[in-house]
């Protein structure tokens, strides 16, 4: 897990990024403190046609049938250069309410695909629960599968491919967890932990340098 702002590794219980001090409050200062509503397929950029929307709705239905605990949503926007997708995703998952989503699918179980047609970036924002189920490498594979269609601006097709790949990855993950029930707990335990900041003789810089991520990157001023 990385900081949405500086992409540095972040402790799983850190209130702020040890590198840049980024937190939800900074995101709220940028995007707003209010809660917003978005649809499951939110095409703010208006780049999907009706048949593509229908097909994507079908796929989302199938995904929800297949994974009754997870929430799948799409945000397509034409954002400015100052807006970073990971920050937007971080803020959206904490401030947006997906219309029609049932109570059993909280935002922490969300898999949100965000595409910025302006900066030509695509990403998958994950809630706390879903980031355990969909590792980073699997998510990257899903995005890569859709990349040729994204390049050709075939967003509907790209999203369809992407969700099919996500569904396949989640199925495989579920099968793996079924065979190895202890793997989930082990994955949780493997998460990076931050050394106690109250330890004497440990400066902030040292903590940052000893970061469990091993990045050893200097703290930004």
């Amino acid at each position, binding site marked *: *897990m*990385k*900081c*949405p702002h500086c*992409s540095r590794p*972040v*402790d*799983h*219980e*850190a*209130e*702020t*990024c040890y590198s840049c001090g*980024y*937190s*939800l409050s900074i995101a709220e200062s940028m995007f707003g403190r209010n809660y917003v509503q978005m649809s499951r397929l939110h095409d703010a950029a208006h780049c999907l046609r009706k048949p593509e929307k229908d097909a994507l709705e079908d*796929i989302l239905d*199938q*995904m929800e*049938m*297949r*994974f*009754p*605990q997870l929430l799948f949503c799409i945000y397509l926007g034409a954002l400015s250069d100052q807006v970073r*997708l*990971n920050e937007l*995703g*971080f803020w959206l*998952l*904490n401030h947006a309410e997906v219309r029609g989503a049932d109570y059993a699918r*909280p*935002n*922490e179980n*969300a898999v949100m695909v*965000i595409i910025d047609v302006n*900066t*030509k*970036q*695509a*990403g*998958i*924002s*994950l*809630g*706390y*629960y*879903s*980031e*355990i189920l969909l590792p980073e490498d699997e998510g*990257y594979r899903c*995005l*890569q599968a859709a*990349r040729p269609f994204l*390049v050709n601006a075939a967003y509907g097709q790209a999203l369809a491919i992407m969700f*099919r790949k996500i*569904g396949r990855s989640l*199925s495989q993950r*579920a099968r793996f967890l079924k065979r190895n029930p202890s793997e*989930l707990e082990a994955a*949780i335990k493997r998460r990076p932990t931050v050394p106690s900041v109250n330890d004497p003789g440990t400066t902030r810089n040292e903590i940052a340098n000893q970061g469990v991520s091993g990045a050893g990157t200097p703290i930004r001023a």
Partner: protein
Amino acid sequence: MVTKKGEAKRRKRAQLMGSVFLFAVFLCPAYAKPELPEWDGKSDRESYPLGGGLWPAGALPDSNDSLENSDQTSRLANSTGAENSNNAGSNPNGGPPPLVSGPARGEDLVAVSRPPTINDGPIALKPVVGLRVPTPMLMPLRIEEVYSHELPEVEGNLKDDYFALRPVSVGGTGGVGEKSFLVDPQQLLTEQKSHDIERFLEYHAEEAEFDICLLLFGGDQKIPADISLEQKHQEWFGQDPVVTVAYFLEHPELTQVVYGQQVKQRLPAVVFDRIFQSCVREAQVAETAFDQVERFAIELSIRLYWMAKLLERQSAGETIASTQESLSEPDWQELAAESEGAVVASSNSGAARVTEKLMDLPWLLMSLGTGFLSCLIGGGWWWWRRDSLAGKPVLFPDLEMPSRLGGVYSGGGYVGISFDVSANTEN
């Protein structure tokens, strides 16, 4: 102008219709009334028993002769051939066909038909008189009647026909001068049956080792005393593999079969007895004398085939049984050898042999191949299906996750790429 043209058209149409009418008037009688010969005399059909009113003047009998003719016809129906010829001479004019009152003969035709005479005038239609068809054969002839008459003794020319020349040219090429395998100079058999038997004997000669030369005699006839079939066989065929058969019609039990000295010496007599008995038994099953000949020949052909096999076995050093009982016994040695082989085979590698035999079956291979293919396709489908979105719902275990960076639902977990080709950068 218009009136003149219309009038001219009307006139032309009237002329055309007139010509068509005249043509029809002249032609129709020709078709309606064909030219027929004019008949004279009585037209009263009751005057004649058959064909009343249809007989031309030249062929009509006088009214006074009608009774006489009716007597003649009745006599014709019952008369023999000689009488018929006499009657034909006495009644040159002929008459209406006689009533069929009894069994008819082919000879009736000669007696009834009137030969053409010079005295008949040009008006007399002789061929019409000849149309008097002989009385039909209402019942098929009984076979016994064909040869029931006494046949002559086999002597003189008839004897020469049978025995003067060698009847069969063994290994011949079927030339013009060659005789056939069936010797029937008296033509005792019908043409069809004779042809059938002859073709069968030729076929047998082509296929089998021993040929059959069949001499056909009447049931009451006898082979002349000075003729010995054994000698004739030796004279005709020598060492050739031919069997000479003297068959007496209706009496298959009197048949004489000559095999030749060489064959006789090699095999025990009981073998020939069995052949003869089976042939006679087979012939006696048939109802008619002609079928008896055919069945006899067929059975003899079969038995000669097995006799040839027997000779082969003897040539190989095997001892041929010399009594009826031993001939009737099964070949225990062969049976024992077969059963021994079966036991060895079963005890040796039974499962392997069964498997080998099963694998030889094409249907088994085909079904195995089909099963393998279907398994392959089914496995692939299952592999593809298990991860598809249409599968069963997947449930994950519930977990309590701590929050980070102040987010209630998400801690900023994100993976992304850039699809800007110009920048070619990925996050």
